């Protein structure tokens, strides 16, 4: 077996992932059929949407939620749970 042709990669040849949170750059936007839209005038900053997003696609800012459209998969949990209707559902590509 011509294994001398296979270079030895040391640590790089070991199946580990060293960069924490490297999935943040992966674009899941193509999964969406609908997207959440925030209406700040109705927002009471209760943090429910931020807490319940399964993909951490909502960043919490002093002004309320900020939707990360790279990570958002369009599950609509945030829209469903928002108690004031400050998050509404809109079709992708609208």
């Amino acid at each position, binding site marked *: 077996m011509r294994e001398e042709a296979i270079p030895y990669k040391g640590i790089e040849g070991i*199946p580990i*992932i060293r*960069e*924490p*949170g*490297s*999935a*943040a*750059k*992966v*674009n*899941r936007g193509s*999964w969406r059929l609908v997207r959440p839209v925030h209406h700040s005038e109705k927002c009471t900053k*209760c*943090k*429910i949407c931020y*807490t*319940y*997003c*399964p*993909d*951490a*696609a909502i960043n*919490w800012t002093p002004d309320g939620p900020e939707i*990360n459209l*790279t*990570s*958002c*998969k*369009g*599950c*609509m*949990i945030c*829209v*469903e*749970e928002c108690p004031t209707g400050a998050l509404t559902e809109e079709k992708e590509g609208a």
Partner: protein
Amino acid sequence: MQEFKSLKDIPEQDYFTGGSSACAGCGPSLGLKLALKVLGPDTIIINSAGCMTLLPLYPNTPLKASWIHNAIENAASTAAGARHGLDNMGNEDMNVVVYAGDGATYDIGFASLSAAAAKNERIIYICYNNQSYGNTGFQWSTATPYGSETKTTPRGKENPTGTNIVNKDMLKIMGAHRVYAATASLAYPVDFLNKLSRAKERDGFSYIELLGACTAGWNYDPRLTIKISKLAVRCGMWPLYEIEHGMLNLNKDFSELKPIDEFLKMQGRYRALPPDGVDRLQALINEHWAELKEYNKQRYV
């Protein structure tokens, strides 16, 4: 040790990002995000083969903590090894936490779990229970409730009930190991994170079973993950309680349980359960709830 009183107290720093290949609306994925807020980056998550295994996919991971994936039946023993390895090196303040599905916990990994609990290893074992083998497409496990359809307990002419086996009482079994055991629901994140917070400080084994609402398996619109997680608690399908030193503490008590019909209608896995199956299931839930009420604040196991 932190004690959270409301959502507003939950730490804002996340050690979990988006970009994983988990389903949109995945309950277990949300559970891990929440858990990591309390556990922090000096944590090793030991994962059993299951849905969560595919959160990291080389070279990407949504975690800002460490992760070891061994096989399906050995998360608890791997965790024991990691725990003692860390302690030997003076890293007692790092957390060792198992995040395993119900199949890996109730079935194939049961011996491994039981021994780790029996030895009171200083680890937190979180079982995300989607009441099936989810990652392989939703097959029956011993955590699948009576009346739920799965791919290996499908409803048919000979068997309209689907799953006609009544579950073992896993919480009581874990309580009998003389460790801390509790249930949790995604719709009650303050309760979940308080339990986790206390588990972090405990000098022994903690078992937390989180109802992992599963949009793909249970067959419901992903937006309903939290509503279903809440209704499960309100109708007694998933009571929130804990057992410590054999004593039962019912965390969320209600004067009356909601009937299960609304809960069943929301999910495709229950929709075709015939009326006598629904009655049997309601009776089982009522029985369990009555037992919990009776033994609340008393010696239970």
